[in-house]
């Protein structure tokens, strides 16, 4: 079957077997390997991506179901050279150990902050319920996301879902990685 998706702002078209999982399409066809596989039952969240702005476990979706959809993976967040605030916060708060859960965690965090710009700790922990981390014990990840929500404040709100008309990366002033608008272009809007 031929499918056509918007992947990090680029259009990707490909013939796929009907049984091909979206995560395998992303990893093996589009060669974007930042999206990981940590289980085969939809429990771990390592494969989390944004589909139409919602956090989705890409191992629970077939590639054909993504036809015509807008998908953002971890590789699509930092377009333009500057890190997304959530990415920066993960570094600053030691939210990464082995890093295998990290892309999925960050995508879940982006989806959360798009709907709740200033979440409570409980809301953060609740939003991560579908994401397993075996290394950190979660605390520094939770701290990173809470920190990211403060980095966003006052700069156009948290980054919205990519198809939202005014989505911004929300880099703070003076951020050396600030990338004057190219980030949005990268998402093809």
């Amino acid at each position, binding site marked *: 079957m031929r499918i056509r998706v918007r992947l990090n702002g680029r259009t990707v078209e490909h013939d796929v*077997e009907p049984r091909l999982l979206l995560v395998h399409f992303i990893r093996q066809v589009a060669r974007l*390997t930042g999206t*990981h*596989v940590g289980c*085969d039952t939809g429990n*771990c969240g390592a494969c989390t991506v944004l589909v139409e702005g919602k956090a989705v476990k890409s191992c629970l979706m077939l590639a054909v179901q993504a036809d015509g959809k807008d998908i953002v993976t971890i590789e699509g967040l930092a377009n333009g050279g500057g890190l997304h605030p959530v990415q920066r916060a993960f570094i600053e708060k030691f939210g990464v150990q082995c890093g295998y859960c*990290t892309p999925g965690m960050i995508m879940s965090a982006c989806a959360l902050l798009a709907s709740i710009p200033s979440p409570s700790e409980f809301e953060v922990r609740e939003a991560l319920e579908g994401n397993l981390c075996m*290394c950190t014990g979660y605390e520094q*990840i939770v701290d990173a996301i809470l920190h990211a929500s403060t980095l966003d404040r006052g700069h156009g709100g948290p980054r919205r879902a990519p198809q939202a008309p005014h989505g911004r990366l929300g880099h703070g002033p003076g951020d050396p990685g600030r990338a004057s608008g190219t980030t949005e272009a990268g998402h093809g809007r």
Partner: protein
Amino acid sequence: MGDSTRPLESDGVFVTSQWVGAAVPRREDARTVQGQARYVDDIDMDTAHVAFVRSPHAHARITAIDTRDAEASPGVLAVMTGRDVAAATNPVAPRGITASVTQYVMAVDKVRYAGEPVVAVVAGTQYLAEDAAARVHVDYEPLPPVVEIEEALAEGAPLVFEEAGTNVLLHDAFEHGDVAGAFRGADLVVKETFRMPRFSSTPLEPWAIIAQWDPGTGAFVVWSNDQQPGRTAINVSRTLRVPIDKVRYIIPDSGGGFGIKLAVWPYIVILCLLARRAGKAVRWIQTRSEHLLAGTHTPEALIEAELALARDGRFLAIRVNSKENDGSFVHTAGIYPLIKFAVIVGCYGIRATAFEFSTVVTNKAPTVQNRGVGKPGMTFVLERLVDLAARALDLDPAEIRRRNFVRPEQMPYTTPTGEVYESGDYPECLRRALELAGYDEWCRKRDALREEGRYLGVGIAAGIEPGTSNLGYYYISRGRPDFLGSVEGAMVGADFDGGITVVTGSVDAGQGHATTVAQVVADMLAIRPEQVSMSTHFDSATSPFAPHSGTYANRFNDVELGAVVAATRKLRAKMLRIAAFVLGVHERSLALRAGTIHVEGDPTKAVSFQEIAAYAYKKALLLPEEIEPGLREIAYYQNRAAKVPRREEFNIQLTHANAVHVVVAEVDVATGFVTLPKYVIVHDWGRQLNPGIVKGMVIGSTVHGIGAALYEEFLYSPDGQLLTGTFMDYLKPVALTVPRFDLGEMESPCPTSPLGTKAVGEGGAITSLPAIANAVEDALRPFGVTVTSLPITPEKTLRAIRGARVI
């Protein structure tokens, strides 16, 4: 900035003090947060894919294998049965066990656990390989399985390895001090039988291997997420019958290890054979189901223990009899029993110990050294006995511990078995933890809430977290030490442009080694960490690794940094010699500053690292004859505290951190669910090199313990089928079910590690188990419940409340 100009003392490690001890952000993370990390399966390489046919039976004879359909399946390049594999390999070499048994890396003629690989299939894609694997027909004649420890020990039990004549592959007993006398003279003996569950720290990335074979040279290249390349090199070459240099190991980013990736090597052997057979590079990415089913687990244990006490609460002696279910893998069988006795006396001055152990094999999955290796179980047992004793003597759990702690003035303290605790202040650690927790207040609150029908309990546990294994220990019963001590290597060099490069023998699986190494080297050479380059990927072709090399047993902070420090010293000394020559002064009058070496007191008389490198390489002709060209230094390091283990004195591990956990647990007596509203950790980590990393290790490790204490268990049916084979029923802690942690500060530098550090990676997983169990038992005191087993599941808790009285 490296702007502190300090003369070099002849034995000084650091010349600046800017980076070591600071929470320097991890250099590994910029790639990771952008999805640019490279794990094995991310390697962009044309490979075929491997799928395994695994045994559906726990115990069966293989009567026929028909691979014809599979071979004719689309895209199939090779099919290998266990017999094919056995014909090309040597059997797996056992380490700890004394019984003589034969096992290959794939099942031959008989399967010993459900999930054991029987046939391997190689095809063009993963989907095609799985299709073909489904077309392999295997006939089995089921044999009666032995699943639980008691069954395996029963008279006439079916044998997992017939040639051994028993299911006990190792049995031994040790006694240190006058145990019988202590028990005779005791005023009180507390005795209990405990059960530790079979669980795993389940790294999020399962095992992954790519193997490539070069027909021209007969050499292999292996990409894997193995965490112990030194031993793997030995095991693979011995099993595959090729010299060590014929297999090159590359370990890219690894998605967590926790010991579970110490047993990847049998599959490396299989992948190498498949690559050679298929004539194409092959890739195997273990699925989570395969991971949970077939490899690997912590063995469950049945532990009888008794503690002898004087009336005043002093501990006189401890006696332990432990039986471990090591499943069915002879390489790791017998590793657990001895190491746990590194902590048999815990933080206490117990002067007589006796222990006996049996390594039992069954038709369960293989086991491997999971985070803490036996010490979580031993500490669970000891700290449970301490609470039972406190209750029997009507003493406060904090007070009975205080009365028995090894005292700071006794340090360094040698335990009856020869373990040397180098430093620490255990009473102070407890004091800080109780204060941070608000212990008395929680006790009052517990009593008050009980009136309202809410059941809270306060649990205390004190634990030792040893680091750096003295690897001779597990050969003690065999009497033939193969490995001894713990050696690690490092290369530190200056490149042609003066940049500093480090290559280590150990691997990284999330510990941030490159960050820490860069901090250490920066302060040794008065440069910035960014000027130190270190790959997070391991390559045996360039790494100065040793047979012990790898990341396990908390050895990085000790022996790996020891090697880095030693190599950096050599490099620094050589750079000083070259600088002295160039500047025409004596080395003693030189100092380092911001990437230069200058004459002390006159920074204008300076030579940069870049110029020194130019002299060392490009312009070596200008150097005096006695200075050898080049600027790359290799050093090997071992912890000198290690002694050759003997039965009378076997120092199992070489550094000893300690911790106190104080936990408040609330049990919902209607549902049996346990929550942890308060969790305090005071972990004496010696000297911290990077507090951000240390904190993450301590908390992450503690959460592994929470999982084992409350949720996780590999349960098997009576016929040996794994019942908890996915993350839907093998439950892991999630962000919502773990508490926020209060961490106290405690730093008693270790006198025997090169930088004063102690272990931090396993202690949480050790001390948390009894802390939580003690808290739950305290909460359920009105119901008279005793906690003797883990995990404390809602079901077990409800049964206990409703009359069973025992969890």
